[in-house]
């Protein structure tokens, strides 16, 4: 980053001299509300599009494989199934700065309520599947089983930081667009946001 600044011509805006940030957003076990809030950034999305390459995102990219050398990744949602887990491990390997984006990534939040439903001797995955597909079924009771197509539930829903190291936490259900912007904008100029006070930290 410093080398880029030094080699830039004096007339050039230092921000222009930076390599474009490679930004990803990921949707694990969540309601997509954090991504909806991200879209609420409205006109700031144009500024963002000027400053970054969105290399992976359910709302802004059609790429199916998480790419290499990602600078920043916003991860919405808890880790609830084997697909979530695999993607979490992959993105950690390929991303410099991983952000737990919203309360589900931070605390498992609503998807984590499944953890309360665990009958004696059975984990919560088994308990909710049996409840949903066997006990409450009418004629065609059967547990879903389609390896490679329908991802298996993990025994327990986990917050992201219990699966991979997380670099920054952006709470909220969802985080407001203002909070998302205040967290992202410093990253565009190579700085870390100050996650302090009710405007940046409050859960819910």
């Amino acid at each position, binding site marked *: 980053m410093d080398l880029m600044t030094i080699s830039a011509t004096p007339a050039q805006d230092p921000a222009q001299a930076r390599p474009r940030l490679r930004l990803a957003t990921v949707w694990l076990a969540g309601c997509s509300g954090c991504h909806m809030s991200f879209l609420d950034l409205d006109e700031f999305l144009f500024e963002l599009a000027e400053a970054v390459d969105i290399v992976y995102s359910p709302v802004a990219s059609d790429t199916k494989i998480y790419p290499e050398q990602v600078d920043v990744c916003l991860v919405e949602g808890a880790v609830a199934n084997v697909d979530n887990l695999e993607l979490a491990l992959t993105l950690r390997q390929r991303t410099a700065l991983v952000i737990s984006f919203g309360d589900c990534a931070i605390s498992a939040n609503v998807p984590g309520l499944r953890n309360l439903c665990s009958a004696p001797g059975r984990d919560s995955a088994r308990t909710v599947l049996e409840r949903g597909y066997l006990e409450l079924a009418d004629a065609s009771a059967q547990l879903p089983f389609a390896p490679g197509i329908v991802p298996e539930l993990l025994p327990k829903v986990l917050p992201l930081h219990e699966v991979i190291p997380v670099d920054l936490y952006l709470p909220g259900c969802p985080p407001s667009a203002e909070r998302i912007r205040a967290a992202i904008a410093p990253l565009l100029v190579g700085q870390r946001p100050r996650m302090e006070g009710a405007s940046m930290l409050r*859960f819910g």
Partner: protein
Amino acid sequence: MSVVTLQVDGRDVAVPAGSTLLQAIRAAGLSVPTLCDLEGLEPVGACRLCLVELEGSQRLLPACASEASEGQVIRTDTAQLQGYRRMAVELFFAEGNHVCAFCVANGTCELQDVAVAVGMDHSRFPYQYPQRSVDASHPRFSLDHNRCILCTRCVRVCDQIEGAHVWDVAERGSDCRIVAGLDQPWGEVDACTSCGKCVDVCPTGALFAKEDTTAEKHPHPERAGQLRRAREQRQWIS
């Protein structure tokens, strides 16, 4: 009136004898986070957020439940205390089932407030997901044990202000919980006057009015102090 003088974070402060350390801290223009403390109720030292360091002592003191004495040198905001406070708040979240997103107290919750105050952006302790219940047997109010932090404000306001003593604390450790009457459904406790003071002072969404849904609770923690002052100063007699 005799006075004691002490030092809080380097500031000299004089308070009436018998004052608590918390009162001395506030008299010095400083603050520490609190949850169980409430003006109008006797202090109990349950939440441990107001722990302070006393020079010459290894023990940390709960400021709300410790008497200020002459010549004390108190520190309220050291790195050690900041660390313990954040840890205590994380443990509050981890030991209950606090899901702010659809809580009746979302936005007015004092546990949310202290999480911000101590800079909690996540919990380092895995959430425990304890099996707890909701008592909706009272016609007007409900008690959601999932969201109770055992501050005992409800126990104290009912005993000390309303004089009904409906609430108590039962069991120990992680089984510890608030009980109504002789561990009965709340709605079956004849002693309850349905005054709602416990709901007013509850810092979280544990006690709430039945008509309130997500983020609709309007707590009134100030009422305990108002009633206490009115009685002591006989404000209702013209």
